[in-house]
């Protein structure tokens, strides 16, 4: 546990530092009082308005904000997992956004077109989304393995292909919802059937739905896969020492491909949770770039499935509450600014570690090689 806490410390400090800096930014452009009240609004808007509730307010004062936070956290968890899983085999998946777009579209199409009971409909839609996302990342994986195309390049390009294909053609063309009656100005694809909607866990009290436990289960599943399963061990070995893994008889290309497809499937599921849980259709565009947020979440969470889930929960709260900052005339993008700054500080994690190491020098293992460049 001590080790785990030590690894999490830089991330925690980074987030706190980002919070402080943003508070100072608001305080300087407005005043201290506004900054403090804005932060309180953001906080209560994310974890539930406890003051109002304790004053005799309705339960929904708690459940609504919490539900919003949980739904944002679910999306961030899944895209974060997407990035982290690829990282485990040493690949940088910048393409979670594109994979999510494909997943969202697949969920929307299956959700609207297939007419089966909910017990089948929801799994079918989820599976279609995972498959679509996995196929999209699978293209990048195949290019990497067979042709040596760098995944950063291919996934970025596939993002654009996804936007062009889906947002700029399918959704406004072949898959555009047919206007019915008075609703003549809807955008996006046809509405999904009620049998494909992710059930709401608290009924009308909040928008919290099955997507949240699904994301948590995915995080736990990925964690188990990496730590407990033989193939997970092989996958980690591929990421940490590809030549050693090959020498040990691990099918390196196969494990790399698997991890990359799984990464795409996670992003695809994020798309499904968005469509089946909250949007109800593939909207004109996907809106917030959750796929790119996944990069930040994965890094702040140390690429650890459980760590990034915690990071996703924190930023889910901040994001959900961020909209309430607007009541005070503070722009709602501040949570994103906090996330960006936290990422920046985590990226400087080596500096954090160096500072911490200096403090605890006696416990450091002796004579670890500082510089070691193997010959080619």
């Amino acid at each position, binding site marked *: 546990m001590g080790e785990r806490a030590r690894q999490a410390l830089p991330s925690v400090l980074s987030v706190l530092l980002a919070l402080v800096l943003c508070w100072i930014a608001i305080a300087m452009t407005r005043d201290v009082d506004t900054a403090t009240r804005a932060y309180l609004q953001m906080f209560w808007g994310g974890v539930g308005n406890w003051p109002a509730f304790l004053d005799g307010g309705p339960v929904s004062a708690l459940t609504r904000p919490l539900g919003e936070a949980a739904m944002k956290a679910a999306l961030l968890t899944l895209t974060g997992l997407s990035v982290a899983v690829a990282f485990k085999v040493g690949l940088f998946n910048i393409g979670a956004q594109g994979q999510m777009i494909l997943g969202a579209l697949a969920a929307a199409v299956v959700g609207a077109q297939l007419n089966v009971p909910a017990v089948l409909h929801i799994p079918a839609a989820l599976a279609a989304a995972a498959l679509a996302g996995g196929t999209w990342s699978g293209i990048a994986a195949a290019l990497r393995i067979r042709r040596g195309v760098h995944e950063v390049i291919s996934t970025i390009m596939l993002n654009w292909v996804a936007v062009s294909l889906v947002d700029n053609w399918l959704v406004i063309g072949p898959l555009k919802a047919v206007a019915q009656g008075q609703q003549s100005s809807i955008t996006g694809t046809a509405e999904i059937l009620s049998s494909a909607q992710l059930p709401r866990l608290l009924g009308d009290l909040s928008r919290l739905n099955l997507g949240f436990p699904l994301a948590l289960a995915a995080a736990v599943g990925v964690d188990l896969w990496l*730590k*407990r*399963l*033989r*193939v*997970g*061990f*092989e996958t*980690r*070995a591929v990421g*940490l*020492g590809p*030549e*050693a*893994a*090959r*020498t*040990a*008889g*691990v*099918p390196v290309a196969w494990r790399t491909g698997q991890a990359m497809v799984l990464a795409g499937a996670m992003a695809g599921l994020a798309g499904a949770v968005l469509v089946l849980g909250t949007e109800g259709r593939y909207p004109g565009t996907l809106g917030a770039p959750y796929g790119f947020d996944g990069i930040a979440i994965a890094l702040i969470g140390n690429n650890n499935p459980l760590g990034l889930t915690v990071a996703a929960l924190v930023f889910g709260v901040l994001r959900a509450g961020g909209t309430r900052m607007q009541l005070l005339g503070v722009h709602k993008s501040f949570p994103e600014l906090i996330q960006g700054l936290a990422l920046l500080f985590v990226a400087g994690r080596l500096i954090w570690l160096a500072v911490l190491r200096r403090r605890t*020098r006696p416990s450091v*293992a*002796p*004579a*670890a*090689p*500082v*510089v*070691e*460049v*193997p*010959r*080619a």
Partner: protein
Amino acid sequence: MSLDIREGELLAVVGENGAGKSSLMNVLYGLYQPDAGEVVLDGQPVRLKSPRDAIARGIGMVHQHFMLVPTLSVAENVVLGREPTRRGVFDVERACEEVAATCQRFGFQLEPRARVDTLTVGSQQKVEIVKALHRGAQVLILDEPTAVLTPQEADELARVMRGLVAQGRTVVLISHKLDEVLGVSSRVAVMRRGRLVTEVRAQDTTAAALSSLMVGDSHPAAAQVSTQAHAPGAVVLDAKDLKAVGDNGRPALRGVSLTVHAGEIVGIAGVDGNGQRELAEVLTGLRALESGEGTLLGGGLGRLTPAEARRRGVGHVPEDRLRRAVVKDMTVEENVALGRHAQPPFAKGPWVDFAGRRERANALLRDYDVRPPDPELPLRALSGGNQQKVVVARELDANPKLLVVVQPTRGLDIGAVAQVHARLREARARGAGVLMVSLDLEEVLALSDRVYVFFEGRVTGTFTRDAFDERELGRRMTGAEAAHG
């Protein structure tokens, strides 16, 4: 600890792995900061905060692992970081001239325009030395310089070192090879567990005396050569006319035929880069065979994969430990499982068997005297010798029928070398066929029942134990067979 280095001397620092030799030198080179104490240079206390400081003050270091850019030329590597420029543009011509001048001044024969990755290891090392000299090094620290050299190259290096001293430079040599140390140095400092045990003049001591000073009382003396009779069993490897291409696209194996029987150690002698590495890679499924045929433990060699080689019972101690043998950011126990992670006691069905793995790792760490014996440590926290013990333990624990070992004791201290050698003999006694590639001729002669000499991808000589002839072997290693027809 305190140590004086005098101007114009050739000081050797010897000691076991983990004795603190490298740490000491890293302090002198500015890579580590001393917690206490100071470095005094020419009567002035100095603070060396980085290698840059050290270089500026005339201290140069040649690391055990070379720090060269393989795709750049000799001259480019030498001037890297202080390139001559003409109108702000890198002036290749001047770089080559300057480097050629430095080479000539110190008597090195190097082609400034040659790409570093086309050079032999011995030449690459010279590039490192020239690099340090070119930056004005007055004191040159060499960390384990002969670990990878052939006898001839090592002699050459000794000449180079003497030449440098004759020109008034100071050389500090870190080494395990006591005979060499005695042959070349004027003074020897012995370190043990972070302390200076003694300093002696080279002419006043012997290798045996140094060896016991180095290890204290904790190890038995270096193991004696096996005298067990050579009684080979069934053929485990029978290869005919193997051909394969090297990483650089040129033929590395040009028709190699050899056999290995159960219960014998077959040594492959040769200068580095004559196809030995590629042979080991072919036999372990890491390199595709171009042509030729062979049987390896009841199967062909044509489509061998690393996994298939392991299934047939091939164990492998690769040359490049940190790249091939271990994953340094995984724990010791995870590394013990690597390669066998799909079988009991390391796995239960699709799951990792944590209890079984821990138990086996603990047993092996104890058995092979790995220090510290902590299976949860990341592997990189172990010293090189202890890492190698982990690799040897893992490979032998699998009970291989053919064990392919490459440079098994490179850079290890006496105690670890003796242990690795003993384990290889043990494997032989148990009936394994052992194919050992080593650039250390002494090691090949000490262990092998039979020796194949490699030169330019061909076998240029075969010797059996009763007919070893070091001079003849050395001549075959440099291709003398062709000259004799």
